[in-house]
């Protein structure tokens, strides 16, 4: 199966080369950061977590894509998702890999990272987060790979993966919950100190992760012969819609609690994010963009017509993805730190090296994703219906036109 990685068209190799360049740039930036210190980023003593941790938080959400297709398929025998479950699991693998990397690049002393294991600290939520994240990574690798192997051999999967799949469902909930606890357990950070932090994480996760999964599936439909089926994608789109509605609802809850209670701490961050505070308001346009995109996309997705039109569908999902990314990948972290405990505001913006490192990590994530999907698609292509198989095979190998084209090069 792994050998599929070595066979691909020029587009495939170009994409890999592109990712390698991105990763190399990321490494360069990271080396600079290692050498100089985290001062190369836009973080400060007030906003002491920035883009890295924000991406980490967001990607924990993306990792949820797995469970949203796994759950209906395995628990409710929803056959329509059969083709896309492994894709979901592998997207989770890539997402969690990026999560881990984002935490590592955010460390001031990455060379001491093993201290977390050498001195396990049961009272730190981070300890549990490491356990649930690495566990989720492992489960998804094992389950995804085993299912794919079984599929490649056209055999039913071995019996022992079933319990593992069942475990993976609550486990997926746990990664969001525990990650939310990183924030919601901190006294003095009023924007985070809310009991619906974990539910909010789950809602936005179940919107953003599956949205990305659908978008990738739509791309794969075009560039490969793999097709999970549009009805299945639309069905997941419905899940995305409802999750997004719940997510928006939760945000509105926060608005109510803050502004009706008039508790200053609860208002300040929302004020800063959506209206600006003390003359600072760098994130205001982003937050409103997120609001418009999120609400607009949800409304659009309620119309069947939008879901039927592949491009509008993709556009709406893209909007949801961007909206949740801004909300969680930007607003949540920066908002939590603003204003600081003394009521002062230091504005945050990522710097170029910081963006470079971020891109590098995304590059690695997409490399992992590409590798896993390439294998999956390779396995699937080998098993398509005879007619398409032949087309695919001809396209892949020695179709006369292609050979001519390649010779001409």
């Amino acid at each position, binding site marked *: 199966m792994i050998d599929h990685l070595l066979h691909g068209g020029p587009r495939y190799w170009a994409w890999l080369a592109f990712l390698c360049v991105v990763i190399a740039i990321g490494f360069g930036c990271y080396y600079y950061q290692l050498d100089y210190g985290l001062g190369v980023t836009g973080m400060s003593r007030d906003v002491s977590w920035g883009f890295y941790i924000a991406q980490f938080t967001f990607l924990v959400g993306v990792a949820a894509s797995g469970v949203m297709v796994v759950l209906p398929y395995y628990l409710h025998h929803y056959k329509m998702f059969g083709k896309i479950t492994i894709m979901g699991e592998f997207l989770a693998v890539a997402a969690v890999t990026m999560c881990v990397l984002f935490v590592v690049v955010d460390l001031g002393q990455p*060379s*001491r*990272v*093993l201290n977390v294991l050498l001195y396990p600290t049961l009272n730190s939520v981070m300890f549990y987060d490491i356990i649930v994240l690495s566990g989720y990574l492992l489960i998804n690798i094992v389950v995804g790979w085993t299912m794919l*192997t079984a599929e490649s051999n056209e*055999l039913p999967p071995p019996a022992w993966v079933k319990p593992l799949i069942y475990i993976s469902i609550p486990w997926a909930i746990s990664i969001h919950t525990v990650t939310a606890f990183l924030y919601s357990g901190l006294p003095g950070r009023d924007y985070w100190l809310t009991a619906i932090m974990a539910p909010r994480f789950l809602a936005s996760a179940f919107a953003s992760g599956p949205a990305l999964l659908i978008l990738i599936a739509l791309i794969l439909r075009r560039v490969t012969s793999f097709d999970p089926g549009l009805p299945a994608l639309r069905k997941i789109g419905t899940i995305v819609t409802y999750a997004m509605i719940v997510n928006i609802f939760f945000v509105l809850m926060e608005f109510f609690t803050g502004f009706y209670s008039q508790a200053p701490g609860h208002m300040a961050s929302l004020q800063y994010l959506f209206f600006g505070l003390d003359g600072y308001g760098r994130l205001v346009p982003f937050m409103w963009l997120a609001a418009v995109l999120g609400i607009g996309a949800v409304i659009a997705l309620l119309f069947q017509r939008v879901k039927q039109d592949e491009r509008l569908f993709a556009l709406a999902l893209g909007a949801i993805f961007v909206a949740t990314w801004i909300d969680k990948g930007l607003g949540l972290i920066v908002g939590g730190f603003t204003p600081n405990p003394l009521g002062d505001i230091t504005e945050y913006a990522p710097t170029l090296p910081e963006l470079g490192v971020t891109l590098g990590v995304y590059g690695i994530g997409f490399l992992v994703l590409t590798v896993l999907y390439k294998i999956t698609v390779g396995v699937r292509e080998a098993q398509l219906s005879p007619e398409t198989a032949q087309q695919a095979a001809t396209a892949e190998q020695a179709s006369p036109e292609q*050979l001519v084209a390649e010779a001409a090069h």
Partner: protein
Amino acid sequence: MAKMLYPFLIVVALALVGYAGGSLPALQVVFGIIIPYIAMAAFVAGFAYRMLGWVRSPVPFRITTTAGQQRSLPWIKANNLEAPANKLGVLGRMALEVLLFRSLFRNTSAGLRGKRLLFGEEKLLWAGGLLFHYSFLVIILRHTRFFLDPVPFFVPWLQAVDGFFQVGVPAMYITTATILVALLFLFARRVVMPQIRYISLPADYFPLFLILGIGTTGVLMRHFFRVDIEAVKELALSLVVLQPRIPANVGPLFFAHLALVSSLLVYFPLSKLMHMGGIFLSPTRNLTNDNRRRRHVNPWNYPVPTHSYAEWQEEFKEKLEMAGIPLDEDLDHKPEMAAARGGHA
């Protein structure tokens, strides 16, 4: 069992002998100077001897194993790495073999499941092998800090990368962990997998134990029973500059380490470990697949008896005439030897 036990005992004995020799000042010269020099000479001479031994035999035929499309018609995409049509392709193919173990990467496992023959992924041997060899390489390069004075630029850099994770003081190297894990894996598969256990000889266990022993004594010296590193370098350097002397205060543990390393050096050219040199000579990999394009010359291409057309026509003359197949009238009727052209017979 004996196949595993004896090699293990031999390695233990070698280490103990080294340790004992290091404990006795009178024998330190033997174990610290004479044996290492002999081992080094045996290694270098033995290695060269074995290589030359192989090179003495010619490669009479170009027997490339092709694992990809040949270069034939211009519009068919050829695979110059798997069926190299030129030297560049061979270079690439050999680089992939030597540096990335390309052929081993192909490994799959085959097994019957019910009525179907299934093929599974089997990349562990590749991964374990690669991990072992690269760890070993890094460890050897790191050790140049003992042989080179002043310590060259790359050593601190390598140490910094290899010791990136600050665990313990002095920091444990990543390669220390990886080589031990890889060796234990390679050993375990010989024990656990029935097929591999069946084919394994004492000569397969011995080098594993030997290198494990070298690694273990190294770990002990670095992390548990410290030896005087300065004296170690003084000794190593004195060997290098051909002014050998035994400094005081070199711990006996180091002599155990050195004894095992010397054993490895001596054993190397005598054993399968010569695959290090041999891989470069493998004719199925290091030859181009351009047999029909370029003639390959066999130096001992001696003439052989053949059945000539003339003999054949003589024998079947009547039948040929009967069948109306044209006869060749202008023939020399002597038996023939197929020529031995292009080479010295």
